[in-house]
C-alpha cells in the first residue's frame, strides 16, 4: 500500500480533499496521513500531491509485516513471554536479565 504523510497545512488539506473525493482508494485515513491502496490510481493521487506540495508530502511503499520472515525467533518469543509476565510494572530490561531473552540494547543495534 501507499502511505502518504503530509507536513504542511496546505498539503494536509489537499490530502483530506483527495480522501473525500476518492474514498474508494483510501484504505485508512489519519490526521495528516493516509494509507492508499496499491493501484495506479492511488499512485496518481499520491504523485499529484507530491507534485503540488514538494517536500511537504512523503510517499512510502508499505507491505504487510510478516514476523516469521523478518524477525528472529528469539525476539518473537521475547514479545510473547514479556506480555504474559506476572507483574505489569516490570520493565523489559529487568524481565530479560536472568532469562534466556534478547537484551534490549542488542536488539536496538540489530537491523531487521
Amino acid at each position, binding site marked *: 500500500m501507499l502511505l502518504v504523510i503530509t*507536513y504542511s*497545512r496546505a498539503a494536509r488539506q489537499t490530502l483530506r480533499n483527495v480522501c473525500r473525493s476518492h474514498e474508494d482508494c483510501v484504505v485508512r485515513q489519519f490526521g495528516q496521513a493516509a494509507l492508499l491502496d496499491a493501484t495506479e490510481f492511488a499512485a496518481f493521487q499520491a504523485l499529484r500531491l507530491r507534485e503540488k506540495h514538494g*517536500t*511537504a508530502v512523503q510517499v512510502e511503499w508499505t507491505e504487510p509485516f510478516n514476523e516469521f520472515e523478518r524477525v528472529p525467533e528469539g525476539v518473537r518469543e521475547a514479545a510473547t513471554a514479556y506480555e504474559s509476565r506476572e507483574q505489569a510494572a516490570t520493565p523489559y530490561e529487568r524481565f530479560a536479565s536472568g532469562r534466556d531473552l534478547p537484551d534490549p540494547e542488542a536488539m536496538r543495534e540489530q537491523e531487521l
Partner: protein
Amino acid sequence: MICRIGERVHRGRVVRTTTTVDQRALTRAVRAGEATDDGTTIAIQARTPGPVHERVGCLHHEMGLRTRTALAEAARSRGHTTALDSRIETLRERLAELTVETVETTDQRQAVAEASANTERLQEAVAETRGELKARREDGDAPETAEQFRDTARELSEAETAFVAARQNLERRRHAARQARNKLAQRMDIEDELANAEREARRRLVERTQTAFESAIESVPGGPESVGNPFEVDSLTAGLAVARLADLAAPVVLACDRFDSPTAASAFLGAPVIATEV
C-alpha cells in the same frame, strides 16, 4: 483626500465620481496609491488603510463578507485587544524565524531505479554469455566469446558499483528530507496553534462587539425590518454596520443606493467616502 481619476481631480472628505469607474480599481488605488481601470489612471492620496479596510473598504451589492472576521478587525481598529495577543505575536515571530529548505529526492530515486534496471540487464547478459562460452568451449577454443564474457562481466561489476553508490546517495538525501520534514512538522504545529489562538481571539472580539454590531445593523438604511441572527443579514448591510463600528481613516469605496447622498454615507460610516454610480 485627493482623488485623481484620469484628468479630473477631486478633493475633500467625500468624493462622488463623475465618470464610470470600476469600484475594485478605486479600492486598489486607495490601498496602493495608484491603479488603472481600462486605461484610466486613478491616483488617491489619503490616509493609509488598516487591516479592516481589506474587509469593508469596498461596499457594494454583490460583495461577500466573512462577518465575524470583519467584526473582529473592526474591534481591533478601535484598539480592542485580547489576552491571547502576546501569544499570537510570539507564535508569528517563531514562524517567521523558522526557515525550511526544500529537499527533493526525485533525481536520486530515478538514478537508483535506472542503476537497478541496468544491473539486472547486465546480470542476464553475463549469464547468457557464460552459457554461450561453455557451449563453444565444448566445441573447442572460443577466444572471441571469452573476450565478450570478460567485457560484460566488467560492465556488470561497474554497474553494481554504480548501483551501490546511487543507493547511498538516495539514503543521504532521504536523511536530509527527514530533517527538513521534522522542521515542517514543527512549523505545522505552530501554525495549528496560531490558527487556534487567532480563532479564539476573534471569538472573544466578536463576543465583545456583538451588541454594538446589532445596534449598527438596526441603524443601516435599507437594512432588514428585524434583526434575528446578526450574522445572517445580507453582506452589504453587515458590511455597512461593521464599517460604522470600525475606525476607518482611509476612504471607503461605496457603490450602493442605501444613502440619500455620499455625505450622508460618510456621516453614517464616520469615514471618508468615494461614491460611485450603482
